[in-house]
């Protein structure tokens, strides 16, 4: 693990927002992620995929902000999917008893498939 400064990028695939948090997911970064998701939500997007492929480390504040995103999406009956998490990251959610609240997929394609979206 070699945490780098945080950055969040995103793209829209049909009606799904795919978000890419990079580096260290802490309070600062987590808020960036929350506002990115809210931005999409305001335009009526209800499906969000968070791809953790470039995320090095998630701390507990990051986790609490992910819970926040989940609640926002739940309020509009949206769906939140996590993909490309490392074994340790998945484990952490498991340890905290939080895995039942999220949908996990090995990669983005499978999450998009689940959400009935086919790229191109």
């Amino acid at each position, binding site marked *: *693990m*070699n*945490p780098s400064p945080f950055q969040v990028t995103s793209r829209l695939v049909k009606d799904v927002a795919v978000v890419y948090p990079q580096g*260290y997911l*802490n309070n600062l970064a987590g808020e960036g992620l929350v506002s990115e998701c809210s931005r999409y939500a305001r335009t009526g997007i209800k499906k969000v995929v968070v791809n953790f492929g470039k995320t090095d*480390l998630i*701390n*507990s*504040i990051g*986790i*609490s902000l992910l*819970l*926040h995103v989940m609640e926002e999406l739940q309020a509009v009956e949206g769906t939140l999917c996590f993909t490309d998490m*490392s*074994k*340790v990251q998945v*484990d*952490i959610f498991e*340890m*905290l*008893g*939080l895995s039942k609240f999220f949908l996990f997929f090995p990669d983005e394609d499978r999450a998009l498939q689940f959400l009935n979206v086919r790229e191109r």
Partner: protein
Amino acid sequence: MPLHGIPAKEYLNREDELAYLRRLADPGADALALNVLLVGARGAGKTELLKQLYQRLFWEGQQVVPFYYSFKTAALKSTTFARDYFSRFIRQYLAFLRKEPLLIDASGTPLHRLMPLISSLGLNWMAEGIDNFQENAGQGDIYGQVFSAISAPAGAAQRGGRPILVMLDDFTTAEELHEARRGDASGLTSLFEESMKSSLCPHIITGSPASRLEAIFSDPSLYKGTERLRLPPLPEDIAHDLFVSLLGKEIACDRGAALGLMRRLRGNPLYIRNIARSLRKTGKKALTERDLSECYGAEVSEGDTAFYWSSVFNDCIREKGLKRPVLRLLMHRLSRGECDGTERLSQVLGMREGDMGKALDVLDAFDPGQDGDPVFADYLRSRYLREVEERSARDIQACLREEYGAAPDPSVFEMVIPMGDQAELVAARAVDQIGKNIRLEPDFLNYIQMALVECCINATEHSGSYEKKIYLKFITSPQRLEIVIESSGRPFSPDLLQEVPVEQKLAAGRKRGWGFTLMRKIMDEVRVERIHDRTRVTLIKNINRSEVRK
């Protein structure tokens, strides 16, 4: 005798525990629990903690009446116990009201002689209670008698208008309460259930070994409303302070050597006191590494510590013929680190399967409960060498010294990081490299990094101090990785340390506070202590072979 604790100024590092326990019965504070199960290794200071608490309540308190009772092998016949428990309670109550310590110890005084005092204090309800108890005692109903003794504090709390803090020491011995012979009346401990329900009469219960104490409390009737308070060993530096102060000003001791000894003693105050006492007896004024190792060898083979363990051993293993088999079994486990099946064991040790089965049963009940305690291991080793291998005292000392010297010095890294600026990542990088140096698996290290990051974040959030620094210490040995994280600032509130179920947490809108849960899940042990004006969190992870790269 509850008032005979060590002087408060010699009592180190248990302020948090004392404060927590004091809150139990304080009518003003909202207590966190009804009853507390105090668990800790033998010699960790459970009895002393109760005495210190007693002392403070007795002299400083006005409202809460402390009652201390220690279960003794000599008073386990139910009728004897009932009388003993009841009359001690009455005397301690009166002693508190009169601030007269002599009353506590005056165990010979018959209860009726206390009547004038009781009536001069206007405690009619107590006089009635004594009459009732004595009537009961005449009727030969054993359960009734024991029950009325046990209920005395709860009754007094109700009628006397003062809460009572009941402290039951060596409660594991209470399991052996009986009518005429051991084992003829089981379940007498469950009679405590009723009085433990009274909110005016909280109980603090302790005893050894922890596993047996826990087993008694797995009974759901006793379990409800009972919190656990774990009494950790003294931290290394405090242990060293204690050791130095016990040696006294006139004796000098090499600091490195002393710290090595403290590590061997695992911060156990009982061991520290014992060895300091024997070192004083040597009459030497400047102690070297060699002095310490020699004294240690003598201490665990024939000193007070050996005597202590012998009496625990003999008390648990009463059948003479079983002592040797149990000793051999323990030694086998110690050197092999594993428990094989009965058949295999009897082959290896050349013992009959029947004997082996019996020895295993006894061993289960004995449960020294001091896993990984090198002092206990050395005691066993010396006893084994003497009784099974029949080696000479000189041989034994030589073996112990070798064992003492063989313990490798752990490597220690220290660093100071600022709070904020993602400095926790710097600490995470450090632990990564330290772990790599001892060939730990990267995945394993990832978890440790998570725990460490959480700990640093916590320190930052609780700081509020002028000194925005976090002090870190990484201590590694082949068996374990220990990280000590210190920072000044507000103490953590105990609520933070409590585990709350996920659903409850989410429902309460509390999305934060996962840090401690995470640390606990990842590490084998998480200790939180207040050392002077700093909070110290110690994260400990034992290293298994699978976590080390080939």
